[in-house]
């Protein structure tokens, strides 16, 4: 039975696919150990990009050589969109789609994996918020006095049950690693599953297309997580190092803000924290988490 021997008892979360680490950064045929939903989880990948994940056990310690395909008693796992994913419950066949990922001229890579002392949904919500740009990312993603968050649309897609926030716009002094001047930037946010969010952003190199920046959050416990920063960019100019430097600068600016939000678990009661108009996406995100029955890493509404 799903979750019978799990520390987390929340079926809505157990049944999700959760990221464990970047495929490229995991040495093949070696045991890697991480944490997920309060438990120690091990995984390994083959050189061809197949994976296995299991609850950590003594005979397969971190760093030991292993043939992933010979491990018995494994959890569901898959290699997809740069990461190894697993589930501690009964996951759906497909997690979510990113058709753009397969376009041949895109550069797809993990910008970084950063540990945060906060809950996974707090990290997602921060990623979703444009209001903090001029204050936290001054000179890059925003700049005073241009602090206005223009009204945008937000809805839950009836077919996929994903949240979409569209027609978001923000004035940014340095919107990307290649930006040379300030510009009005178009954003679309998409929340595919409780702890995974994707941002579509104007692409300087191809005005009719969009760059994709994802934050796939691994809830290591209710109040700790690891954020995996997924990039799918149309940019054949910048080095990977240069892009990583840009993205990690922004991520690191967010760290003290996110870690100082209390309580660390995200309160779902609409009265718990006072939203403003530009928080409409967050309001919907919290309600959507309630509707999905998410109780892990949140404070459920009474």
């Amino acid at each position, binding site marked *: 039975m799903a979750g019978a021997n799990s520390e987390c008892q929340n079926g809505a979360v157990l049944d999700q696919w959760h990221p464990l680490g*970047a495929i490229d*950064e995991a040495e093949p045929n070696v045991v890697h150990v991480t944490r997920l939903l309060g438990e120690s989880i091990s995984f390994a990948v083959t050189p061809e990009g197949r994976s296995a994940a299991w609850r950590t056990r003594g005979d397969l310690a971190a760093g030991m050589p292993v043939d992933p395909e010979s491990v018995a008693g494994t959890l569901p796992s898959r290699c997809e969109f740069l990461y190894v994913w697993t589930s501690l419950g009964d996951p759906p066949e497909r997690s979510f789609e990113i058709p753009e990922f397969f376009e041949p001229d895109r550069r797809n890579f*993990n910008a*970084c*994996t*950063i*540990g*945060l*002392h906060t809950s996974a949904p707090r990290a997602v919500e921060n990623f979703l918020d444009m209001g903090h740009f001029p204050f936290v990312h001054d000179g890059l993603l925003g700049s005073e006095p241009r602090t206005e968050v223009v009204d945008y649309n937000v809805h839950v897609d009836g077919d996929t049950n994903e949240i979409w926030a569209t027609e978001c716009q923000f004035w940014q002094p340095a919107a990307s690693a290649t930006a040379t001047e300030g510009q009005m930037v178009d954003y679309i946010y998409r929340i595919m599953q409780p702890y995974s969010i994707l941002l579509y952003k104007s692409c300087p190199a191809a005005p009719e297309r969009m760059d994709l920046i994802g934050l796939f959050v691994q809830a290591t416990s209710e109040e700790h997580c*690891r954020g995996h920063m997924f990039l799918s960019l149309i940019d054949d100019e910048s080095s*990977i*190092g*240069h892009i*990583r*430097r840009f993205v*990690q*600068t*922004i*991520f*690191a*600016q967010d*760290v*003290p803000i996110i*870690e*100082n939000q209390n309580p660390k678990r995200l309160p779902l009661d609409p009265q718990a924290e006072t939203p403003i108009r530009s928080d409409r996406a967050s309001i919907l995100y919290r309600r959507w988490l309630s509707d999905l029955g998410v109780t892990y890493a949140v404070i459920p509404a009474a």
Partner: protein
Amino acid sequence: MIKLYDYVLSVNCYKQRLMMSILDVEYETVPVDFFPGWEHKGEEFKKINPLGHIPVIDDDGYILWDAHAILVYLAAKYDPSGRWYPTGDPGLLGETASWMLFAEGTTNTASAARLCINLGYDFDLEACQAGAHRLFRVLDEHLWFREREGREWVCSGAHPTIADIALFPDVVLSEEGGISRLDYPALRRWTDRVKRIPGFEGMPGIFPASQGR
């Protein structure tokens, strides 16, 4: 021009950027894909520093590594006033050296805890945090007594030294390592003073001090 082999989130690299910004030294950075690329552990980088760590500076062919050694070099060479590395005052120089060694301790505890939490390093997190608290308590008390004497900096001179620069990043980013500074009021006041040194620049995760009115 000085080349700094640099990683934007490294406290030890930030120490060099901060020092050069304060001394108004022109430099260029050579970004190293430290994480998650581990470029500093690669064969190419080991030709520059066989120990495989950053920061490293290349000052017109003169190569130097080790964060606190670079601070000594930068101050000795680029501070004509001789105050940041006070070679003209043996007593003050001794104090500076002593607190620079203390800063090795804060780097190996407070900043190591940050590497554990943020970048997933496999250190003993609780030992790092406990060690940092032990050192912060000593430093907080020391700074409190300094303030009683009307002094503002870690060493007893009227001017800050490279010891302040070596300690500041480990202290100011400690919360990222799960080390609260709530119990260290003198330490907090000192970080605000460092932020007001002319030429100060921050790094991601460090907020500027509010400007006095």
